[in-house]
């Protein structure tokens, strides 16, 4: 009976992530969640825009930000978006090993991004004495960028659990939706980052 969701590879449908009702639900549910996340980040962006000039005599955005590191971080995260696209490409072609390989690269790029962010925060705190508490600008900056970083941490943890759990059992209709929802979530993190580097770093440098 069909209690066992795993299908023979020969009969894998073209969109394995949406072939079952459960898969469709996961797919829709995650998209709707992202709709809510849009508002969540909009609130943080709004707060940042409202408070970005309230430095209370502390360092301002032009004093702090450097373009090189941010550019490097952007390239890391954008590439990780492409690698997760590759992973999904191989999932649709039912090539489990390559999918796992590209997912692994995605995770490593994400960890690289996170390392840069931690370095950046440490740099601001140690060299500029610019913390979560030092001014309204500081609070808003760390809240926005930190919330994004928190999403990256969550995404990486999710990916690790997913990869470990499914390492030995190949692709089937039960886990394909799980990989796909992760990939959507990961793209969304990238979407948010595009606005973070534009609104926080680039716009912070021009004014």
């Amino acid at each position, binding site marked *: 009976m069909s209690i066992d969701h795993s299908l023979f590879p020969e009969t894998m449908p073209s969109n394995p992530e949406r072939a079952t009702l459960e898969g469709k639900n996961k797919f829709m549910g995650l998209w709707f969640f992202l709709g809510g996340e*849009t508002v969540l980040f909009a609130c943080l962006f709004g707060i940042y825009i409202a408070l970005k000039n309230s430095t209370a005599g502390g360092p301002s955005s032009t004093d702090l930000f450097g373009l090189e590191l941010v550019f490097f971080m952007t390239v890391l995260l954008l590439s990780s978006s492409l690698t997760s696209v590759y992973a999904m490409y191989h999932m649709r072609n039912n090539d489990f090993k390559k999918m796992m390989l590209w997912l692994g690269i995605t995770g490593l790029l994400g960890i690289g991004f996170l390392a840069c962010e931690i370095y950046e925060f440490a740099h601001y705190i140690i060299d500029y004495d610019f913390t979560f508490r030092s001014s309204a600008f500081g609070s808003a900056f760390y809240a926005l960028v930190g919330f994004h970083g928190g999403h990256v941490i969550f995404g990486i943890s999710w990916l690790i659990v997913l990869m470990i759990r499914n390492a030995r059992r190949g692709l089937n209709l039960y886990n394909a939706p799980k990989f796909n929802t992760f990939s959507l979530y990961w793209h969304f993190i990238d*979407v948010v980052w595009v606005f973070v580097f534009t609104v926080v770093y680039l*716009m912070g440098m*021009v004014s």
Partner: protein
Amino acid sequence: MVNQANTEEKVNAYEQERNKEEMKKQVISFALMIVLTLISFGLVASGHLESIFAIPILLMMAIIQVGFQFYYFMHLKDKGHGMPATLIYGGVWAALLTLAGLGVISWW
């Protein structure tokens, strides 16, 4: 390659061709995204533009880039994405209102 041969048995040739076509588009959009990013960073690094010109351009670049992300990387253009698109646009609408509230009418 062995792997390649294996894949061909698993998924039919038509699907595979379609996936490949799709992948090509995605690589192109990635290249464009990188270009857009470079333009944005270049604009700021050169330091020539007044902020009143720079900011709209930067925002435009970001919005185009996010469009690629949503429509190509996340397949929002594909069939069966009607409700996701509706709710994402709903979220964007609520987001714009929030930004307007916090950005434009919260002074003191």
